């Protein structure tokens, strides 16, 4: 363990050295955004919880169910995150050759990588979830030991996912051909995700036209199996929320299982690691499938786009988030079939318009997430090879626009398809469909520009895994700004559309003041979207024209 701590010390010192007043001041805007997020998340969770608990008879059961579902989702997220991180950390990390060349026992390297994997894959859960649990604590007026128990039990909960994730990574590397690991893993991840979704769905034979049946089905959902860690966590948390002593059995189960999983992953690692490392050494790979296109020669303006497209289809590590996003889109579109439009139309005559609006907001969320992967990360993808472009006679402006089209084209195709299909399901009329599609194209243009521009403003050419670029603080900031632009654009549009429709249904034509207001709204939307693309692209161009640390 002493050696493991010694091996960890450079990383700890690097973090320590990177924290100073200058860095803190530079990151102040992100810290403030983080605080705002915490507050919004806390208030939202508290309000939802208050609403749920105020329901007669079922409030408390629903509240426990929500807690159970949260732990279940966290467990799945942690597991997938640990498998992906373990593969990178144990087998693709750049420090492995250095560590292997030193007189260090394999078990010490395994321990170091275990700590790295668990911390890297869990930090997001650890940092994002407190407002939710604090909302629970405050809502229930829970005693201090609720927070203590929750903190203490979260550690073994994370360790269990970590242990299983690392174990899976060792086994996958052993079983699958080396170059296919990520692809195999992602396929497994996607299938697992869809399985869980369809499993939960099958537990919910929901006829949403009837609220009673929905409630009945919701209670019947069986994700809290007594053999699952999320069940133990829910039992501990629920007991301590109600000022009762949690059952020691669940505490022991969490502790013993976390130790067992860590030991098992360690033993399997010691058995397989050396062999696995030998299997992942670079080998020759013939890319001669492209031979028949040998005569193709891109023009200077298309060179970067051509290169990026070729690399994208060969580099499976770039696909990880695409798979997850793909699964989310599938579920999103699939869910539209179950919307009880008939039932809802009793509450408002504008139900289709409202549904199209909600659809657009959801599509905007998807757009922000997809853009983070395709556009925000696109410049960082150049990595340490950025010197090649920087020393070539290609202007930064052309480079940035090339990256824009690299992301804009697939993003727009995906978004148009989603909005078109979902609007068809809703039964949107021609005018609504037209507005929705035009809005989507406009948002795709502005958010693509924002993504490439911000990616150029905050490039990260030294990365271990490209997924870490879009998940960085600046990547998160991009998603927040992108979604804010979407919300602002849609809010103004919704207001204008409502204004226009109301006048139409009352049979009165718009007066000059109303026409002016509508025109102004249109101008504001256009200006907002132009600024969204122009400012970051300009700033990004300036940043990349300056010194770059490569």
């Amino acid at each position, binding site marked *: 363990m002493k050696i493991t701590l010694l091996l960890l010390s450079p990383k700890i010192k690097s973090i320590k050295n990177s924290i100073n007043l200058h860095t803190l001041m530079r990151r102040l805007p992100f810290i403030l955004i983080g605080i705002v997020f915490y507050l919004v998340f806390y208030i939202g969770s508290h309000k939802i919880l208050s609403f749920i608990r105020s329901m007669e008879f079922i409030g408390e059961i629903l509240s426990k169910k929500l807690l159970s579902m949260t732990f279940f989702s966290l467990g799945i997220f942690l597991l997938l995150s640990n498998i992906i991180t373990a593969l990178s950390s144990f087998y693709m990390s750049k420090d492995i050759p250095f560590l292997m060349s030193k007189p260090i026992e394999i078990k010490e390297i395994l321990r170091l990588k275990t700590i790295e994997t668990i911390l890297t894959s869990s930090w997001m859960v650890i940092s994002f979830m407190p407002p939710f649990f604090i909302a629970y604590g405050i809502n229930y007026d829970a005693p201090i030991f609720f927070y203590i128990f929750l903190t203490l039990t979260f550690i073994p909960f994370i360790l269990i996912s970590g242990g299983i994730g690392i174990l899976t990574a060792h086994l996958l590397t052993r079983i699958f051909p080396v170059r296919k690991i990520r692809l195999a893993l992602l396929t497994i991840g996607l299938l697992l995700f869809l399985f869980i979704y369809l499993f939960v769905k099958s537990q919910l034979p929901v006829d949403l036209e009837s609220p009673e049946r929905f409630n009945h089905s919701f209670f019947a959902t069986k994700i809290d199996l007594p053999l699952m860690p999320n069940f133990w966590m829910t039992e501990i948390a629920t007991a301590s929320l109600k000022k009762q002593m949690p059952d020691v059995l669940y505490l022991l189960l969490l502790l013993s299982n976390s130790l067992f999983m860590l030991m098992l992953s360690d033993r399997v690692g010691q058995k397989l690691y050396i062999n696995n490392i030998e299997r992942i050494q670079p080998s020759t*790979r013939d*890319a001669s499938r492209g031979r028949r296109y040998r005569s193709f*020669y*891109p023009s200077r303006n298309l060179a970067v786009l051509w290169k990026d497209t070729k690399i994208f289809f060969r580099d499976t590590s770039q696909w990880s988030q695409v798979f997850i996003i793909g699964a989310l889109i599938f579920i999103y579109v699939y869910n539209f079939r179950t919307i009880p439009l008939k039932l809802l139309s009793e509450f408002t005559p504008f139900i289709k318009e409202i549904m199209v609006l909600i659809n657009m907001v959801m599509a905007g969320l998807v757009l922000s997430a997809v853009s983070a992967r395709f556009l925000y990360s696109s410049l960082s993808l150049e990595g340490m090879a950025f*010197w090649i472009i920087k020393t*070539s006679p290609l202007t930064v402006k052309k480079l940035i626009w090339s990256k824009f089209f690299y992301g804009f084209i697939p993003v727009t195709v995906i978004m148009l398809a989603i909005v078109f299909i979902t609007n068809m399901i809703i039964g949107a009329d021609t005018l609504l469909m037209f507005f929705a599609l035009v809005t989507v194209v406009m948002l795709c243009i502005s958010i693509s520009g924002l993504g490439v521009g911000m990616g150029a403003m905050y490039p990260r050419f030294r990365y271990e895994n490209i997924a870490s670029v879009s998940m960085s603080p600046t990547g998160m900031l991009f998603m927040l700004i992108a979604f804010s632009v979407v919300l602002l654009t849609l809010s103004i549009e919704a207001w204008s559309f409502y204004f226009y429709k109301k006048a139409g249904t009352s049979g009165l034509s718009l007066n000059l003041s109303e026409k002016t207001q509508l025109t102004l709204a249109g101008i504001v939307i256009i200006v907002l979207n132009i600024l969204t693309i122009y400012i970051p692209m300009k700033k990004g161009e300036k940043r990349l024209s300056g010194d770059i640390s490569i």
Partner: protein
Amino acid sequence: MIVLENVSKSFNGRWAVKGLNLLINKGEVFGLLGPNAAGKTTTIKMMAGLLGLAEGRILINGYDIVSEPLKAKSILGYVPDKAFLYEKLTSREFLIFISSLHGVEKFQAFKRIDKLLDTFGIKEIEEELIESYSQGMRQRLLFLSALIHNPLVLLIDEPFVGLDPFGVKMLKAMMRRLSSEGVTIFLATHSLHIAEELCDRVGLISKGSLIDLKNKEEIVIEGGLEGLFLKIPL
């Protein structure tokens, strides 16, 4: 021809290069020598347009690298000390990409790619992804890519890192030939025997400042570069 006029660069308030003046003629092989952290790589990165200048100016065949970067870069070939390349491209695809960036016409590009792949001994593995190349092969590919557009000025940072003796011999011959054809070559190195063998003139740099400038004859008279190098104040 390369001109450096009073070139300076600082990082976090510390001068990495200070008041550097150099004039390198057409067809000359010039070596910038100095101990570690003397400012060699910073100088070459400024010449390649990777870093900006705090003061002064750099002219590449009369083009200012700051105000006319595209014109300067179109006649520049740069070989960095670390071979970071696009791992998921084959060497042929990589060279097509570089040729295209430099605006080389298609027919010319394919002709030169075929010829240079053959000369540099990469022809046999041209369809393999770069990720599977050894350090030496990567270095050869780097050199090759710097020559694909017939540069008039070649900037090379630590030229023979990772190369086997065959590779070193081939590159030395290549550099001599390029120099005789009028290509100006600027080397940054701390390898004394390479500088002695290849360079027409050598500049000694320490703590970002040029401290000595010698031509081939002067180096011979003074008994070789080693004595001069060891006199450099650290």
